[in-house]
């Protein structure tokens, strides 16, 4: 563990990160980050990953014929339940 300026150690700060990030707080203004390049870099990396994720794997439509398959399967289930 590396000692950092301000009151929190890096470990303590990083243990709070999930909650801090999830709260939408402006983390750049956090006291620990004003003096800790290490945690600032970690946060920058996590932000870069979250940002890059937005460009990943766009939402796509399933093929048109999938509905026909589903309809056919529904029909099959209905017929078999009618028999029993």
């Amino acid at each position: 563990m590396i000692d950092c300026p301000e009151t929190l150690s890096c470990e303590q700060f990083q243990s709070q990160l999930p909650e801090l990030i999830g709260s939408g707080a402006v983390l750049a203004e956090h006291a620990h980050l004003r003096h800790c390049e290490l945690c600032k870099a970690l946060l920058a990396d996590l932000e870069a990953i979250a940002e890059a994720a937005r460009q990943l794997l766009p939402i796509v439509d399933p093929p048109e014929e999938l509905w026909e398959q589903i309809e056919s399967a529904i029909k099959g289930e209905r017929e078999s339940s009618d028999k029993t």
Partner: protein
Amino acid sequence: MSNPVFPAQPRHPGSEASGGNLPVGEEPSQPSGEQVGQRLLLPSPTPDEAKLLAAAQSGDHLAFARIYSQHKRRIYSLCLRMVGNVAEAEDLTQEAFLQLHRKIATFRGDSAFSTWLHRLAINVVLMHLRKKNLSLVSLDEAMEPSPDEGPGRSFGAADLNLAGSIDRLALEHAVADLPAGYRLIFILHDIEGYEHNEIASMLDCSIGNSKSQLHKARLKLRDALCAYPRQEERR
């Protein structure tokens, strides 16, 4: 001042991710709830939505077809992102909607319909992964990967400076390699844009658990990306 990268209210599915060009019959989804403290207030479905749902619940096939049309992209995309294989994603989407057809009459409105359907689809995907003998037994276990699957500790790690250098392909591979529980949370939050309260509702976990798992997923991705050769090194 807001935080544009880690927003309190992430962009919502169906907005940016869909490119804003929804096909006829497909509507952008609305936030499924507003969190007040730890309480989730469910939005009332519009009269049209309620009517459509009631019709489908009473066996109206056309109403069910419309529900399929409204939700197919999100369910298919979730399946595709989780399994990374088109044929498997199609099978899983079909299974999810077949299960929906069997169970739709049991929907009582305790959660938003889209949340309920997503949870159903997630369970179909997780069941599929279990059958493939992946390291996954249940949703609970998916949410609690074993300790050796956890991300590396970051205290004292060097400045990796990923900003501007993340290779899309590397990130896709890294996401695909995440343990299923981490992958699920990362996909739902960072890719699909669900909020933690929605994810908690879908996965029946706490909001804190969702935040924690997402953070671990990002740390694990960071570890993986750092091990991946940079673009200039691959040339």
